[in-house]
Every structure is written in C-alpha cells, then in structure tokens.
C-alpha cells in the first residue's frame, strides 16, 4: 500500500485514512489514504473511473466513507462546511441562472449570515479579483463559459475558504481560457494561503499547478503513485512547461499511467 | 405520463384509504345528506345506472358530441395551422385576428350557440369545435415551424408540387407533434362537452349528473362524477398508448400552449 504523506511540516489539514467506499453495490474506492498539508496545492490525476472526483466529494463531506475516516483539522467530516469551498466542473449547473453575477456571489454571504452593509463592496472586490469587474449585473447565460467558471470561483472565495476543492474546473474550457485561469487560480491560492485540492485528467495541468501530484488507478479506485513537484514559483506558462524537471515529471506520470493501463 | 402504466403500490394507499375512511365516516355518522353519499352507495348507483343502460346512453351522447366537435374543430385548426406554418406572410397577416379571437372563453359562446341552434347536438359540438380549433391551430403551426429546414429544402430541390409537399413531407414530419396536439384536444373536447351539458344542454353525462343532484340522488350524481373522471382518464390513456405505439421515442415531445 502506497502511503501519501504531507510534505508540509506540522499536522495535515485534511486527512483520508484507509477509506473504502461502496455506492450502490459498486466498490468505488479501496483502502485510500492521503494527507494534505496546510497551504499545500495537491493535484489528483487518473483515468476516468479511478474515483478522483469521489475522493473530492468525500473531502467535501458530500459523501461518507463506508469504512475508514475523513478528517478536517482532526475532526471527522460528517457534512459540508462553509470554510471548505467546492468549484464544480459543470459551472452551468452550479450557478443560479435567475441571479445576476452579483447575486450569485451574494448567495454565499447570505448562507453565512454576513452583515448587509459593506457586502456590495466585498462582492465587487471579489468579482474584480476573478476578472469580472463591472459584470455584476449580467446573468450567467450572458457570460461565456470561462467567465461563468470565474464567477463560480468568486462565489467560493466569498466563503473565505481554508480549503478550495476543485473538480476538473477547466475541463470544458478551450486551451487559451484554461491557461489564463490556471495562472489566476495559482495566484489566488497563493495570495489567500488556502489549501487546494485539484482534480483533473490533464497531466500537464496537474504538474503545472501542484506542489504534489497524486496518481490514481481504477477498478477499484486507489492511490497508486505520488510525486513531489519542486518547480519554482511563480510558475510561467512558457518557462515552467519547458523546465527539464517538468518534462521528466510528465514522462514519469505518463509512463506510469501507460503501464497501468496495459 | 408513465405513471399511468407503472403501478407503485405506495400510490394506491391514499385513494384506497380515502375511500375506506369515507365509507366508515358515512356509516358511523349515519350520513343523511343531499350532497354526499358513502362510496358503497356510489358504487351501487353506478352499477344500476350502467345496467339499465342510462349511463351508457348518456356516455354515447357526450362522446358523440365531443368527437363530432373535435373532428370539425381539429381538422379546421390543423389545416389553418399547416397553411400558417408554411406561409410566413399568411401567418403574419392573421396574427392579430388569431390573438384576438383565441382568448375568448369557449363558454362565452354558449349563449350564442343556444340562440342560434337551441338545445341539442349542434350547439354542443359547435362549442367543442371552437374550443379545440385554437390548440390545434397553434400547436400545428409550431409543429410545422419545428420541422428540420433541410427537409423543406429537399422538397423544394425535388420540385414537389404544393400538395405533394404538404402530404409527403410536411405532415409526416410534423405528425408526432400534431398527435400531441390531438391528445390535448381530445381531453379538451370531453371537458367542454361535459361543461356545456352541466350548464345548459339537457343531454349527456353532464346533464345526468345535474339531474341526479337536483333530484336528491347524491349517490347517482357522484357515480356520474366518478364515471366522467374514469372516462377522461381512459380516453387520455388510449391516446398515450396510441402515441407510443405510433411514434415510439419520437413522441417524447410535450405540448405547451
């Protein structure tokens, strides 16, 4: 069994301990363990059906494990928490189409029962931060896919989350939009000091973003490999991707998945 | 719609329970009412009315009126709908007329029909015809508008005559959605026929119901009420089955007015 340990010093903020998950008679995850350090950026890759999204939903408290435990700061995750935010892949379904961009971000403040005064300014600041300044009055279906995903990120930031869980957030976007958003997510995460857990099927995206990459394999879903990424910050779409370290990591993960599939 | 075919035992608890409670309550309180009757009484009255043929005769009258009106109203509406769907200028020219006439509640024409025809079949089916004409027109028009434009281009490229275009391309392509309109119109025709009978026309199920109620036979009146409900349910069920049988998956379109 491969055990994945937090690179960062001190207690892990999130911990998955020997988790099994069976849903509707199907074994989705078997004996999965992982630790995520405070402030760490962890990416999960793997072929479809490997349970990477399921792992995210366990961390979110949307699923409960059949066996084992998921803990947040040492406490069992029994339900979703306001300081753990989730960015869903299908932004079109996760936004309220009848609310403006401003109203969608406001929903998070309403849920927290935050005071009304000063809220509008905070919302505008968040919209500016994700690059939606001045777009507050638009409805989601008046925004492009990339902008809708930015809006979802803004709503998550409104929760001032300690942990940001992202489920293939850029999977449905075109390459240019995707790269722009990768850099913005990186800078936002570094700026807020949040811990990030990022699910993707794109190896390069995982290496580019992560401090650590976890590789998973399917049938049943399990953790198979974990690699530390020691690329310098801030990362750059051109130089980082040409870095020999980047290329060798990509090769390592690529070969691993190739081998596992054959 | 599928709920019609699938039988979930949980769904039967409420109606069966209500019937039992109604029966028990009626017996315990020794119900003496001009309006309500215990379910057993309703059942007996219904069986008696079925056995002596009076209920079946009334059913025949109502259905005859409903379907005669439907045949006139729907075919007229469908013909207009096809023409307006095919020829945009016609559609635009008739827009105001259609939008002004359509919202006239069908029952508002009841006194008009009464004045012109007096009591009888003709006043009833003319109102049913008016009521079914509009959904037929509107839904056929939108069914035509929903035809794949490529198909119409094909028919033009083949230089089909207008008649051939309508009968070989347009109607077959729009048929699934026109059938949905028909299903809706069948329901409307039955509702309107019963309504006309309840309010004015002394024939059919609606009148029988009114007669029984005013003759202080609540059991019989309620039996007619249940029968009308069953009839509506059966007619709709037949239409759903026919739709599935005729069009299969293509029938998965809903009518919206």
């Amino acid at each position: 069994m491969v055990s994945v340990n937090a690179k960062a010093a001190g207690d892990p903020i999130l911990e998955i301990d020997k988790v099994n998950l069976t849903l509707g008679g199907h074994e989705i995850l078997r004996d999965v363990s992982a630790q995520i350090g405070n402030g760490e950026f962890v990416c999960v890759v793997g072929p479809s059906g490997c349970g990477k999204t399921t792992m995210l939903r366990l961390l979110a408290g949307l699923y409960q494990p059949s066996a084992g435990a998921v803990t947040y700061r040492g406490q069992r995750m029994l339900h979703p928490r306001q300081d753990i935010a989730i960015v869903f892949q299908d932004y079109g379904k996760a936004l309220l189409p009848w609310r403006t961009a401003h109203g969608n971000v406001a929903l998070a403040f309403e849920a927290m029962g935050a005071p009304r005064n000063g809220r509008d300014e905070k919302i505008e600041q968040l919209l500016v931060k994700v690059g939606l300044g001045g777009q507050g009055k638009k409805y989601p279906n008046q925004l492009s896919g990339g902008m809708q995903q930015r809006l979802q990120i803004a709503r998550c930031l409104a929760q001032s989350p300690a942990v940001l869980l992202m489920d293939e957030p850029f999977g449905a976007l075109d390459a240019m939009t995707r790269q722009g958003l990768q850099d913005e997510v990186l800078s936002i995460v570094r700026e807020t000091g949040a811990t990030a857990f990022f699910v993707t099927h794109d190896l390069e995206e995982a290496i580019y973003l992560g401090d650590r990459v976890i590789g998973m394999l399917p049938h049943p879903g399990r953790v198979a490999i974990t690699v530390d990424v020691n690329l310098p910050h801030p990362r750059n779409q051109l130089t980082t991707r040409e870095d020999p370290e980047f290329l060798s990591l990509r090769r390592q993960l690529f070969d691993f998945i190739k081998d596992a599939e054959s | 719609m599928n709920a019609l075919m699938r039988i979930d035992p949980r769904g039967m608890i409420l109606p069966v329970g209500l019937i039992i409670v109604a029966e028990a309550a009626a017996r315990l309180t020794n119900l003496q009412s001009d309006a309500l009757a215990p379910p057993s009484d309703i059942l007996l009255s219904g069986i008696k009315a079925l056995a002596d043929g009076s209920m079946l005769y009334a059913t025949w009258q109502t259905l005859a009126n409903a379907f005669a009106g439907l045949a006139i109203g729907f075919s007229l509406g469908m013909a207009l709908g096809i023409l307006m769907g095919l020829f945009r200028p016609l559609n635009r020219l008739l827009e105001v007329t259609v939008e002004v006439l359509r919202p006239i509640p069908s029952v508002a024409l009841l006194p008009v029909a009464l004045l012109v025809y007096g009591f009888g079949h003709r006043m009833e089916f003319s109102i049913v015809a008016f009521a079914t004409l509009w959904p037929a027109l509107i839904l056929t028009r939108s069914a035509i508008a929903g035809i794949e434009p490529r198909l119409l281009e094909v028919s033009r490229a083949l230089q089909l005559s207008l008649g051939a275009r309508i009968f070989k391309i347009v109607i077959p392509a729009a048929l699934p959605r026109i059938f949905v309109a028909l299903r809706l119109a069948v329901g409307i025709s039955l509702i309107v026929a019963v309504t006309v009978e309840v309010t004015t026309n002394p024939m059919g199920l609606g009148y029988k119901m009114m007669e029984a109620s005013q003759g202080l036979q609540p059991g019989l009146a309620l039996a007619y009420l249940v029968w009308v409900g069953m009839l509506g349910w059966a007619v709709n069920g037949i239409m759903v089955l026919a739709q599935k049988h005729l069009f299969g998956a293509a029938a998965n379109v809903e009518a919206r007015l």
Partner: protein
Amino acid sequence: MKVERLLWLGASVLVFAGFIYFWQLISDYRWVSPVFLPGPDRAWQALVRGITTGDLLVRWTATIERMIYGWLLASLAGICLGALIGSSERARAYIGPTLELMRPLPASAVVPLAIALLGLSETMVLAVIAFGGLWPMLLATVHGFSAVEPRLYEVSRALGLSRTAVIFKIALPSSMPDILAGMRLSLTVALILAVIGEMLASRDGLGSHIMLAARAFRSPDLFAGVILLGVTGLVSAMLLSWFESWMLRWRESR
C-alpha cells in the same frame, strides 16, 4: 428590422379590420338574421350603452373579481401544496398517482356537487373556480420542484444554506418557469369557471348577463358581453405574459 415588424403588424390589424367589415356586410345585407347576429355597429352601441349606464361595467368588474380571487386562491394553494409534494420524493410516490387520477376530471363536473354542498352562493362559485384552477397550478409546481437541478442542492449544502433558504432561494426560483406556466393555464380556467358559475348560480356578472341576453333574444347585448369576455381573456393573458417575461428575464441570453 423593427420597421418591417411594425409594417406587418399594421397589415395584420388591417386584415382584422377587414374581418370586422365583412361581419358588418353580413348584417347589412341580412345574410344572417340579425336576431342571431347583430352587426358590429349594434354590438358596439350596446357595449357603449352598457358601459356608460354602468350596468355592464358593474357586471364586468364582478366577473373579473371572481376570476382573480379564485385564481389567487388556487395559485397560493397550488404553489404551497405543490412545493410540499414536489420537494419530497416520498410524498410524490404516495400522492402523485392520486393527482394523476384527478387530473382529467373536468372542473365543471364538480359543479353539481358544489351546488349541492354550498347552494347557489358566491362561495360556491369561488370554490369551483379555485378547485378548477388548483390542478394546473399543483401539477406544474410539483413538476417544477421535482425538476430542480441536483447540482444546485449540492451547491447549497457546500455553502451551508438553511432548509428554508434552500426552498426560497433555490427550489422556488428554479421552479418559477413551471409555476408561471401553471398560473397562465389556471387563469384561463378561472375565467371559464367564473362565467359558468355566474350562469348556473345567476350571480350578477358577465356570465349571467350573456345568458339572460340570449334567452331574451337581445343579441347586441349578448355580443357586447362576449366581446368583453374576449377582452378580459386577452388582456389578462397579455398582462401575465409580460409579468412572465419580466420574471424570467434571466433566460434571455446575451
């Protein structure tokens, strides 16, 4: 583009005017006996007379009031009940089939029962309108609530929304398109049942007005009433559809 649209609309109005003129010709040349069909001129005179003397106006407002009260009652009850049934999978399984059984029952068929229970009273008319208008509302709301995007429930869990917040901020607005469609249908039904109720219970209103006019062979009065009913249907449908497009303005894409 706008100009073209206006031109077509103008042409369409002209066509409608042409039909009215044709109607005038029918009565002028006595193609149909004026006992049955008065010309538009005489119907218009009756309408103006009825409104200026106030008789028709009083009846018209009475009908509109009944329609609106019954409709509001039906809408309120329909939305509340529909929300209760629609938001619970279990409630749907138990109650849904019963609703399906009741659905094809014509609302007018309960009129005899309502008369027997409540007499020829104002309450009876309102009860019938509310009962008839309830079904479209109820079914539409149940459908709306059961069709809420499941992802939005996850979003509300992740955000930590309370139960009431989920109903009022997620489920209700998400069901709004269905609810508004139900309200539109329900309003049509309400007008029809208001007219029927007035005819049967002889309550003062347009329904009894046109019925009495027909019995007395006063066809201009009859047609004046029919015109007012058409106007009521048209205006109420238009108002509601404006309200609908305002409520659903978020649907318009860029």
